[in-house]
């Protein structure tokens, strides 16, 4: 679906009075109206089928393509992407743990246009799923549901909803189960959709809830076994958290396009804004942040196929880091836009202010940044152990980082709640650094890059030593552990960049397309990304705010970019079509 034809379709839909036209999108946001026409257009284009695995009749084969798909939609409008994409989140538990019959039936529903929602959170409990009160009590024919789910995307619009319900009064990790509830088959009066909540961003989305009053569902609504609910949800989140970073990439693309467009139109002090050095630096830094985020997203989403056993780590890293980077770059570019990031009718229908509001939800939903960092912290002992033994799944890593490498069909049975092998991407850093130095010695890349790789390695070794020294504490996690988790994420980001460059340099330098070729020439994107990551590891995000001259060269590449395609280091946007 992430093919040029789809990109062209989106461009067409954004023209004139099409459903993705900026004026339409702005008007819907103002009226808090659901982007129904845009979602229908996506349905007609067959996008919903991309949420259904091939074996159940759909087109979902490779998760990196899902990331690219959501990125492309979010680049036009994040509200639409969130509203439409939710169906994957609603269905994912069935793909993981449902019976083939359940899955085939749900696949058919989705292909036919059904909207599926995911009911996890409850009023007052937020991310604390084990505090959930909605109960499912076994009856002669199935289960009886009582209680409510709240702040649920598409709870009202959806025909189906996967519900996490307490099936054992005492709760606990085995006390919850997942049920796929078909609202159309519930007795009238046994449920009620809750009012749409007024939200800060994604104002048009259906953020509501659902309350059950003795609602009877059949026994075959159960997904997996009774008591498996929490386990299935935790596995599902590994997939959704990884895929959701596509939303951040799309919002970042959009922000970058708006800012770069403004900077080439606006004159200040007798110069075009993008030629004022400080503005050029800002654009270059923001673009570099996007490339780093893209590298993380690419390696993490390929890891769903290539390193599934480590997904508990890589998904937490991706979901914590990518939305954070995107929020930051949006803030940076917003300052460049000044009043135009604030006024809703002056520049591009106020799209920047809208995406700024919209994107803030990405770091909150599907596990907030804090929740994901906490998940990573829980794995510190394992990560420290794996670092000590330098464990690496070399074969998996090669596939995860080689862009054209065939991806095996995703196998849910290989998901693990705790990664036994730590995080290969980070653990393989010493080897990668050695390889980078070989490239330096052969004259293929500038010596500075080898030096940067070494600095990354030193920083990563420090972080790993600190991991080992951190005593595990599930309850009183000190603030310092969260800071350490954030640094581990940066190590992953730097390592992902290095791996992507090393595994693809031969192939990518020949890539067509001006921007991408410029980014790969002299390993420009790698140098810019490593500078970005290493400076943050050394100085923190605030201390590294001034950027580096190499980021100016990224801004120069940005100036050549042909929008609306993504500003991307990935050699070929249609790679998925050519790769098999």
């Amino acid at each position, binding site marked *: 679906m992430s093919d040029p034809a789809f990109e062209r379709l989106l461009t067409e839909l954004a023209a004139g009075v099409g459903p993705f036209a900026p004026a339409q999108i702005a008007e819907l946001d103002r009226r808090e109206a659901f982007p129904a026409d845009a979602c229908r257009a996506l349905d007609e284009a067959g996008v919903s089928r991309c949420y259904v695995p091939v074996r159940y009749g759909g087109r979902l084969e490779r998760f990196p393509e899902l990331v690219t798909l959501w990125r492309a939609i979010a680049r036009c409008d994040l509200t639409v992407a969130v509203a439409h994409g939710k169906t994957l989140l609603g269905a994912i538990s069935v793909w993981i743990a449902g019976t083939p019959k359940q899955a085939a039936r749900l696949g058919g529903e989705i292909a036919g246009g059904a909207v599926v929602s995911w009911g996890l*959170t409850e009023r*007052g*409990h*937020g*991310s*604390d799923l*084990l505090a959930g009160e909605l109960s499912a009590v076994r009856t002669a024919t199935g289960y009886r549901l009582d209680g409510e789910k709240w*702040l649920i995307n598409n709870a009202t619009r959806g025909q189906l909803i996967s519900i996490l319900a307490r099936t054992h009064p005492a709760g606990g990790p085995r006390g919850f189960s997942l049920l796929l509830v078909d609202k159309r088959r519930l007795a009238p009066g046994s449920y009620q959709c809750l009012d749409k*909540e*007024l*939200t*800060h*961003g994604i104002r048009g989305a259906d953020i509501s809830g659902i309350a059950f009053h003795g609602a009877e569902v059949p026994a075959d609504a159960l997904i997996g076994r009774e008591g498996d609910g929490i386990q299935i949800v935790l596995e599902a989140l590994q997939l959704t958290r990884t895929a959701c970073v596509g939303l951040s990439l799309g919002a970042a693309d959009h922000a970058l396009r708006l800012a770069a467009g403004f900077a080439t139109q*606006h*004159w*200040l*002090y007798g*110069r075009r804004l993008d030629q004022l*050095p*400080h503005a*050029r*630096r800002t654009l270059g830094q923001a673009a570099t942040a996007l490339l780093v985020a893209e590298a993380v997203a690419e390696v993490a989403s390929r890891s769903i196929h290539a390193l599934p056993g480590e997904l508990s780590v890589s998904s937490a890293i991706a979901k914590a880091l990518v939305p954070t980077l995107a*929020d930051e770059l949006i*803030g940076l570019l917003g*300052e460049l836009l*000044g*009043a135009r*990031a*604030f*006024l*809703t*009718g*002056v520049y591009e229908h*106020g799209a920047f*202010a*809208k995406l*700024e*509001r919209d994107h*803030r*939800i990405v770091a*909150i*939903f599907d596990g*907030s940044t*804090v929740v994901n960092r906490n998940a990573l912290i829980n794995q510190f002992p394992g990560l420290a152990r794996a670092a000590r033994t330098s464990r690496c799944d070399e074969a998996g890593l090669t596939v995860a980082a080689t862009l054209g490498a065939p991806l095996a069909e995703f196998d849910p049975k290989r998901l693990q709640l705790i990664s036994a092998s730590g995080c290969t991407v980070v653990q393989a850093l010493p080897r990668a650094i050695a390889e980078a130095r070989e490239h330096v010695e052969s004259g293929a890349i500038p010596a500075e890059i080898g030096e940067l790789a070494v600095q990354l390695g030193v920083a990563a070794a420090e972080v790993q030593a600190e991991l080992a020294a951190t005593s595990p504490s599930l309850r*009183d*996690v*000190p*603030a*310092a552990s969260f*800071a350490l988790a954030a640094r581990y994420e940066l190590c992953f980001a730097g390592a992902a960049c290095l791996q992507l460059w090393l595994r693809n340099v031969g192939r990518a330098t020949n890539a067509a397309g001006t921007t991408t070729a410029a980014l790969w020439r002299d390993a420009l994107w790698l140098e810019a990304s490593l500078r970005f990551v290493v400076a943050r590891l*050394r*100085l*923190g995000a*605030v*201390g590294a*705010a*001034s*950027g580096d*001259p190499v980021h*100016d060269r990224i801004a120069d590449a940005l100036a050549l970019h042909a929008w609306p395609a993504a500003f991307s280091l990935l050699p070929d946007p249609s790679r998925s079509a050519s790769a098999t």
Partner: protein
Amino acid sequence: MTTGPAIATPPRHRAVELDERFGDPWDDRNPLGHAAVLDADERAELLSAGEAMLDDFGLGAEYVPSSLGGRLDCLDQLIEIMRTVFRRDPCLGLGHGTSTLIAAVNVWTGGRDAQRRAIADLLLANGKLACGYYELAHGNDLGRVALTALPHGDLLRLDGGKEVISNLERADAIVLFARTATVPGSRSHSQILVDRAALLASGGVAYLPRFGTAGMRGVQLGGVVLRGCDVSADSVLGVANRGLETALTSFQVTRVALPGMFLGILDTGLRTSVRYALSRVLYGRRVADLPLTRTVLAEAFADLLVCDCIITTVARALHLLPREASVTTAAAKFLVPRLLINAMNRLASLLGASFYLRRGEYAIFQKLLRDLPPASFGHLARVAAQMTMLPQLPQLSRRAWRAHEPAPAGAFTLDGPLPPLPFEKLALAAGGQDHLTGSLVAIDQALAVGAGAAGELADSDRHALRELTARFVSELGELGEACGALVHGELSTGASAESYELTARFSAVLGAACCAGVWWHNQDREPFLRDPAWLVAALGRLAARLGPPPPLPEDVAARLFAELAARHDTGHGFDLVNRPLPGWQRSASRQSNTAER
């Protein structure tokens, strides 16, 4: 207030009096409470009950110098009073008053006596001014504004337009920034002070549709096209063609004042977050009991204190060291809005989904977040402040940063007396003078030897503080080297990003000087202010702008959190003066279970 001898019982502070009038923010029936503020925001209207209350309070008089019959004596007092409004509703602060203030300071700075008198009378009667500088096409580049006011017979003829101007259609009088001479250079502009009714009568005035915004939605932002509008030649404010000077000097007053008022946003954002953390239960305990929560809240509190140290010191120094204000106020404008925005973003992540909702107990947070950005880009953006500092750095490096003369103690003494605001002494450049960093060097040396207030400290505290102050003093030395070496081409708008970065580093050092000075010179105040804990946290926050962020020591985080929770429970402001806020006290006393910790 009881009556008593005036000397023994000082009158209640006007900020306290004003807060009382606002009442309990979390009482849904309060016409000035959060619920009413949020409703007005949804309708994109200014809170009319709030406007009426502020008129009754006579807020306009706060903008008028005492010498003209008003109540403006000390800039820090004005900031505190307006902060009271911004805590409740930044739209009300900006829409009822701040745009009037910006225009009025132009008049106090550049106007003739008769113009000052007339505007003073207008403000004392709760009249409003609009301040017409901005043109979308030119942004911060005042020298290129397109509106002209050129002689036409005995009159001045206005041609051009202004955009995104608060209260344009309801102000009694308007200050318009226009080109009044065709020659290039910095002496070709003037402020034109016109009565709005008279302007309309001149014909050729067409208002633009109101500008929509993501935040500050209640503020009426208008625009106007002026086609051959003739106004009297004596509409020119003060001396003709000196408008750029008037703008750049009077903006010194407002570019420290406004961020100081916007600080009220972080005060309420922080209070809302504390309220959330104390009442919300996750994973079987209060959010406030998670160590990360305490650190996030403590750091946001430290950020707020850093901001207030900068604002208070720079505002007071404007009275005492007016010649240096071009640099000090620019540093405040550069640093404070960024710190406020970063802190609010961090708190938003603490609130999680609760921040994202526009209804309910914490809904005020998202409104405050949307209202904050103009602190950064409005009234000349942060980058313009950097541009003000940059050309002055070489001279500062050759003079002040070698002489290290400290500022008078009065620059740091909270609530201390000040001479009147010396509008006439404000200068375009500081001439290499910078006494605030001189104070930093002096305090650093005192900490080294244990002199003065440093003698009262435990050795460990003194060393911890000294380690921090020494970082900034050494940074000042490095800045001196780098700035002394700046070539001419690196001092103007086309300077490299590296040169701009020097202004950021200097601002952090100046911020540290403000923090250290406030601590040093207020040792006779309450225990919290005397305690070095907050200074350690504050300097740490600023040090993170120069190098690896020093971790917040756990005991310091605990001390700050305890203070924060206590002020939340007793309804005190989180800023330096720590005054009781009667309106917030009412909501604090209604919220029962928070006291036990």
